């Protein structure tokens, strides 16, 4: 078996790269075989058989999970809390097939700071990694180094998972949203006073009569998007200064199609691309509010009285990228990335670990084009970008195996 694993590891891409990563790499999270930061795109060492099949990558604190179109799962990076699901606590610097799921078909994955979750096509939820804050939903606070099925959901059908730093959100087929893990900032909904965490899933109520399309989490933030494009946010304050333990409908004038959360900012795609919050995204430009390409909108929340005077209370339009349409977005803790309809990748925000992939460690306030070094023509449908805390991954899935 050891031999088979070794063969699999050797069976890596030899031809032109189709997946890349850059940024913080000291835990092996770049999946390029090393344990160093890289400021420029590096080939991500997926096994050859993954070519053209990677449909999604979830980036955590320092680990990542890749999902293929036919339900296989690969993990790499920091494994100190068992979050890679291989039954040990080792860091692994290249994508490794999670053998536990050989006989399952996984349809959704998410990565928190040090925990991982996997939903199967039959609606089961498996978790592994750090459970200190109850974020595994196991009823205890122990870590697990092999995926286990969360008993609470055995009679329910899980369709989506989204994990923040220390909390987990789960969307069921029946449209209900559950949360577990840290409750300190309201990120898993309304909790009893002094209850710092829940290690058993609890229903997050407060959504109006709507069909939830997707859920999002990062840091201590939580968000959901309904099918009409209405955005709901709760948890640590992104708008105003007060945390919210009930999902708040925000920006009713926007019909959003995608959302990406960071630790102090969020990206909202609604035809145009907007950011909420700031930190490194605007730090270098104090006059950003008066500059031409930025356009502000009021959040105009319906039921809650937010502090609208706060500078964080507005959406800021991201300067357009050569007039191209933005088709995919992703957010790390303090950096952002997008893919245009022409398949070009842009990054901006915090760059200290090279997570912008521009060859340096500078911060950027506006999107900058990343030179992937991929000369082949590619369409927007095939290129996608994903972020972990301090790293970025790009996959061109349009290239089927030869």
């Amino acid at each position, binding site marked *: 078996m050891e031999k088979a694993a070794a063969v699999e590891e050797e069976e890596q891409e030899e031809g032109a790269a189709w997946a890349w990563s850059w940024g913080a790499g000291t835990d092996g999270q770049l999946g390029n075989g090393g344990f160093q930061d890289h400021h420029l795109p590096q080939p991500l060492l997926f096994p050859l058989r993954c070519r053209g099949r990677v449909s999604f990558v979830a980036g955590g604190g320092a680990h990542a999970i890749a999902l293929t179109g036919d339900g296989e799962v690969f993990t790499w990076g920091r494994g100190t809390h068992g979050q890679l699901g291989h039954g040990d606590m080792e860091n692994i610097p290249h994508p490794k097939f999670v053998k536990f799921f050989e006989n399952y078909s996984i349809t959704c994955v998410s990565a928190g700071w040090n925990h991982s979750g996997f939903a199967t096509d039959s609606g089961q939820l498996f978790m592994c990694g750090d459970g200190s804050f109850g974020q595994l939903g196991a009823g205890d606070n122990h*870590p697990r180094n092999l995926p286990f099925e969360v008993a609470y959901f055995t009679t329910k059908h899980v369709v989506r998972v989204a994990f923040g730093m220390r909390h987990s959100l789960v969307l069921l087929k029946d449209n209900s949203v559950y949360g577990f893990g840290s409750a300190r900032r309201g990120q898993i909904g309304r909790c009893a006073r002094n209850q710092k965490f829940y290690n058993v899933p609890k229903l997050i109520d407060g959504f109006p009569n709507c069909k939830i399309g997707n859920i999002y989490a990062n840091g201590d933030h939580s968000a959901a998007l309904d099918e009409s494009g209405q955005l709901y946010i709760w948890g640590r304050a992104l708008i105003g200064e007060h945390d919210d333990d009930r999902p708040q409908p925000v920006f009713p004038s926007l019909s959003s199609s995608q959302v990406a959360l960071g630790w102090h900012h969020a990206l909202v795609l609604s035809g145009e691309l907007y950011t909420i919050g700031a930190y490194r995204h605007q730090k270098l430009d104090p006059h950003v509010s008066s500059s031409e390409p930025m356009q502000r909108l009021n959040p105009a929340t319906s039921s809650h009285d937010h502090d609208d005077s706060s500078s964080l209370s507005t959406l800021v339009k991201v300067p357009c990228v050569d007039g191209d349409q933005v088709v995919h977005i992703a957010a790390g*803790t303090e950096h952002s990335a997008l893919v245009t309809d022409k398949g070009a990748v842009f990054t901006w925000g915090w760059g200290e670990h090279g997570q912008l992939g521009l060859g340096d460690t500078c911060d950027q306030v506006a999107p900058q084009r990343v030179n992937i070094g991929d000369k082949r023509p590619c369409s927007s449908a095939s290129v996608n970008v994903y972020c972990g805390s301090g790293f970025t991954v790009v996959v061109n899935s349009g290239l089927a195996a030869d």
Partner: protein
Amino acid sequence: MIFLFITCHLAFCIYSQTRFACARVRRGARVLLVRLARARRGARVLLVRLVVEMSAYDEVEIEDMEWNAELGAYTYPCPCGDLFQITLADLRLGEEIARCPSCSLFITVVYNEEDLVDAKERPPKPAPRPVAVA
């Protein structure tokens, strides 16, 4: 003769009073300078604290930090993927900055003296062992 004596006495009085006044003024000035210096130092401390608070990545309560026995420090996730760290000894010295060993970011730690006394008497609980689920 009496007139001369009175004049001399008066002159002496004026002289000694002036000297006394001068000394008082000098002492007053010295006190003022000391106070000014103290105020400046205070202002500098305030300024440093303000700058630290303004440039700190975040402000985190100690109860949200995790005790890491291996590092001998309280830790909190850093956005780079590593951990902000501050030792119990540093906290007891009044240090309130937790730094990340991998990057330039730091956070300010919010705590009460009593929390530290508690920490001394009640050693932080060890991390639970991983459970392998077959």
